[in-house]
């Protein structure tokens, strides 16, 4: 019983981190209608940021979250403002290749700059566990999950309550309307891209103590973010959260009952099922499916 509970609990914790990654992807899509196929690469940049901060200053892994998010915000802002902006009106496959090219550039740059060797954070903190009854919850994962949920909650509040958040939601809802009321669309878009990529970067810093950082991790993150987003409903923020938790638990459950190497079968199966049966995602609105 402890086995099942422990595995599922870990699934939930990982799910929260997936949700943060997916949150970033979905907000970019929801506002600009572009799919960031280089999202996983952004996570990896965040991981490197986390690793190097630890290596240089021996900081607590959580301390890297803000700097990583800030770095990725900047990257996202500049990329959107100067590059992606020009592709908004282009067809989906051209945007796709743009992001694939970006992904190649980032992977190549990582390989050139940091080499292929995996970089692991060795800190005693990464071996801690919290015990709740018979349940052992890994401390790093719990902290990562808590931080991820906190970030998601803060962003949600930001989008609801702040002036800029309202502008972002307005721009997502009706682009012409946003221009009509004088919203600086290009800036708002760039901020949105910044936030989306900052989510990926923060998630990267959070997982850096869990997975060792190397240049080729990215596609896995991109895929998981996609599946998560589609499950929850593309463009839906609560959907990203739900999708993340669902994927986390589903993978954990699959690792228990199936051969663990088959566990992504369940994710893909779930993905196909949702696409066929409820294309707007589990809690997304049909609006999102444009």
């Amino acid at each position, binding site marked *: 019983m402890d086995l099942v509970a422990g595995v599922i609990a870990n699934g939930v914790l990982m799910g929260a981190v997936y949700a943060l990654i997916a949150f970033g992807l979905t907000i970019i899509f929801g506002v600009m209608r572009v799919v960031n196929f280089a999202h996983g690469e952004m996570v990896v940049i965040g991981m490197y940021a986390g690793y190097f901060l630890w290596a240089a200053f021996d900081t607590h892994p959580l301390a890297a979250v803000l700097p990583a998010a800030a770095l990725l915000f900047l990257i996202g802002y500049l990329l959107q403002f100067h590059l992606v902006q020009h592709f908004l009106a*282009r067809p*989906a496959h051209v945007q*796709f*290749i743009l992001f694939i090219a970006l992904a190649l550039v980032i992977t*190549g740059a990582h*390989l050139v700059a940091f080499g292929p060797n995996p970089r692991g954070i060795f800190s005693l903190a990464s071996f801690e566990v919290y015990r709740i009854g018979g349940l052992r919850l890994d401390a790093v994962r719990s902290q990562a999950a808590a931080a991820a949920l906190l970030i998601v909650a803060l962003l949600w509040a930001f989008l609801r309550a702040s002036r800029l958040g309202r502008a972002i939601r307005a721009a997502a809802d009706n682009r012409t309307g946003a221009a009509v009321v004088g919203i600086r669309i290009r800036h708002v878009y760039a901020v949105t891209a910044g936030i989306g990529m900052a989510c990926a970067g923060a998630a990267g810093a959070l997982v850096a103590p869990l997975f060792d950082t190397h240049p080729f991790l990215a596609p896995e993150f991109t895929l998981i973010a996609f599946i998560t987003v589609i499950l929850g409903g593309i463009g839906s923020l609560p959907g990203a959260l739900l999708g993340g938790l669902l994927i986390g638990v589903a993978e954990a459950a699959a690792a228990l009952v199936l051969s663990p*190497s088959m566990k992504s079968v369940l994710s893909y199966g779930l*993905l196909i099922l949702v696409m*066929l049966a409820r294309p707007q995602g589990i809690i997304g609105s049909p609006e999102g499916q444009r």
Partner: protein
Amino acid sequence: MRRGAIAVAAFSGLLALGPLVLDGYLLSLLALAFAFAFFGAAWNLMMGFAGMLSIGHGLYIGIGGYTVAVLLVTFGVSPWAGLPLAGLLCAGLGAAIAWTGFRFAVRGVYFALLTLAAAELARILFEHWPFVGGTGGFFLPALPPGNVPLLTLRGGPEFFYFAFLLLLTAALVLTLAIRHSRMGYRLMAIREDEDAARASGVPVLRMRIAAAALSGGMTGIGGGLFALMNGSLFPNTMMGVAISIEIMIAPIVGGLGTVFGPAIGALFVMPVHELSEHLAQEAGVFGLNTLIYGLLVLLVVLFLPAGIGPSVARLLRGRR
């Protein structure tokens, strides 16, 4: 149409003379370029003409490859029979996916992810299927001395050069014929505006299934030949995400929805790959090749929005 046919004839005729002046290295490099040009042309039929974005075309390469290889090694069936069978199987798969997508109204990005999910599912299943060697891979025997390529459909660089050139030429002719046929116009009508096309009486479902089946079937045949060229098959390299993405780059760089786009794209991309690899080796900076390649693709999408093909065509026309 006539000018296009002349262009195809000139293109293929010129390349057919290649072995007179090229050595084994350039031949095998070009064979690889033709292979990717062919995959690109097949993919282009679906995306460029019917507007169905498939990011899981590795599925057909893999299924085609394994079909031919397993038939050959396990059952002793000649690739002469294996290749058409692979084509039929993949055409069926393509049709099934197109039908599923249509039936459940899976559009745009969703359709793309459906194709990706299908390819990934197939990859994982093959990785757990001992009959095809799982992740351990599936190997073809070495060619015996005195091998007759036309019999075994396996051989040296020259054989694969001609084999893929032939496939590519066939694909170009087919693309050209379709482009100027009623089917071509219907497909492009669907691409431009599906609802309008349906309103004006285009049988959207039939057209989409036809395009997907044709594209899948062609890719399957190419995948079979690709496996014969590689000599070994692994689910990850034959149908992973990497190859699915790789085959899209050439047609988009070359010019989507044009007859020659995929070929021009592949003939541009391959040397870039090779030169950047050289450069990386010379500089001793590993990974530089990925960086250069990514930057070049980026530059092309930035500055040649329609792809290299149309820009070259405009340049040629401008000269006249």
